[in-house]
């Protein structure tokens, strides 16, 4: 599995061959608060880079989750749809949102590294 890369919309991506795993960052969960609903995409769905791919809702509001990378969904994580609260406890591990077969590795390469992302969060406090 490759190193995690990060988007400005607070998603993370890791890559295993041509299959990417996407989730939301710990920082995102801290901004959202208690997560109470998650909707993940079905396998076979095509997603655009920065296109809407999933939904996450906290007690406060609903937010879209975007795919930082284009491709075709191979799996949505049903476990987090059944237990949305698990996203708060392990957002960058077991509580990934979806996997997709990517079209262009260049999209992955252009995302931020961990250090760059941490810096970005500091410079753009919510």
């Amino acid at each position: 599995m490759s190193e995690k890369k990060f988007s400005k919309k607070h998603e993370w991506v890791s890559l295993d061959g041509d299959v990417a795993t996407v989730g939301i960052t710990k920082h995102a969960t801290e901004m959202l608060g208690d997560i109470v609903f998650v909707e993940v995409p079905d396998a076979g769905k095509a997603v655009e880079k920065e296109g809407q791919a999933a939904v996450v809702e906290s007690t406060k509001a609903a937010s879209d989750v975007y795919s930082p990378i284009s491709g075709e969904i191979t799996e949505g994580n049903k476990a987090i749809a059944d237990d949305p609260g698990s996203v708060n406890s392990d957002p960058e591990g077991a509580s990934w949102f979806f996997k997709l077969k990517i079209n262009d590795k260049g999209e992955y390469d252009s995302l931020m590294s961990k250090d760059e992302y941490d810096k970005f969060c500091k410079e753009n406090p919510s």
Partner: protein
Amino acid sequence: MEVQKTALYDYHKNLGAKFVPFAGYEMPIQYKDGIVKEHISTRTHAGFFDVSHMGQFFLEGDKTLITALEKIIPADLNNLKINHSKYSFLLNNEGGIIDDLIITRTEKGFCIILNAACKENDIRQISQFLTENHKQFLNNNLSLIALQGPKSVEILEKLIPGVANLKFMTGNNFDYEGEKLYVTRSGYTGEDGFEISISNKKVEKFIDYLISNEVKPIGLGARDTLRLEAGLCLYGHDLNEKINPVEANLKWAIAKKRKEVGGFNGWEKIKTLLANGSEKIRVGIKPDGKVIARENTKIFSSDNNEIGFVTSGTFGPSVNAPVAMGYVKSEFSEIGTSIQLEVRGKKYGGKISELPFYKKSYVK
């Protein structure tokens, strides 16, 4: 307009509050624990809420004050005993709800607790009926603290002996730190609890005491989930000037005597609605799955006709499921009726549900 702050603003900040603008005030939406934990601590122990943004409006006067107020408030104020409170409304000529409120009879007249966003307009509306025999003032030197939850009585009784004797929707003056404060047994969470009207100068010390007794600070976020589980309306969402008490399923809050005799704004219309029922009515709604039907979600019948809309919807931490309230055509208002909720373009099943979603008994 300049953003206003309550006397406890810095105190909230030190407790790690996240603020949001609300009704012209910077108010805590949540603290470090987050909404779900704050909600649960209120239900299992006790929580305090700074509701000082709400208007504490005092009225004094002779007998004619009752006549004046009864023109706009459909409560039986003549028979309201001193230190007793009622939930009621200000009504417009069409019977629409200008605001919902708690009115308490005091020695000299009445105290009305008004919603923050409405208070200025409320006072204008009430003033139309007042004369030079009536004195009115909005007391901004007072804070208002709600202490809610099963441990509230034990904790407050230790500090202010006597409060345990108060029954639900009654109040009294008590001494605290050489000053008078007014305590009512009331609240808006579905829990036993109190609302304490206390001078801005003493409020921090009072909160210090609550915190030393493990009472958690609770923000507007959990206040919303708590009141919704308790089936209570939020003005500006579940109620507005175009909705009358019959539609709002709040006809119980119009005094029996007033229903018969009338003499208040919108009575003609309300009388007809009381006799014939209204076209739409406020109901509780439970989505079948985990999907949250938020405000403005369209409601459809099982055969796909649009029948209403959601006015409040969230996840109910104590119910451990999504809960909502909204208005549907009256023929679809029976408990258990299957409905559909349109969320993000997709229809999800749900049912008309009994209110409240979460029930506890008040001390009567």
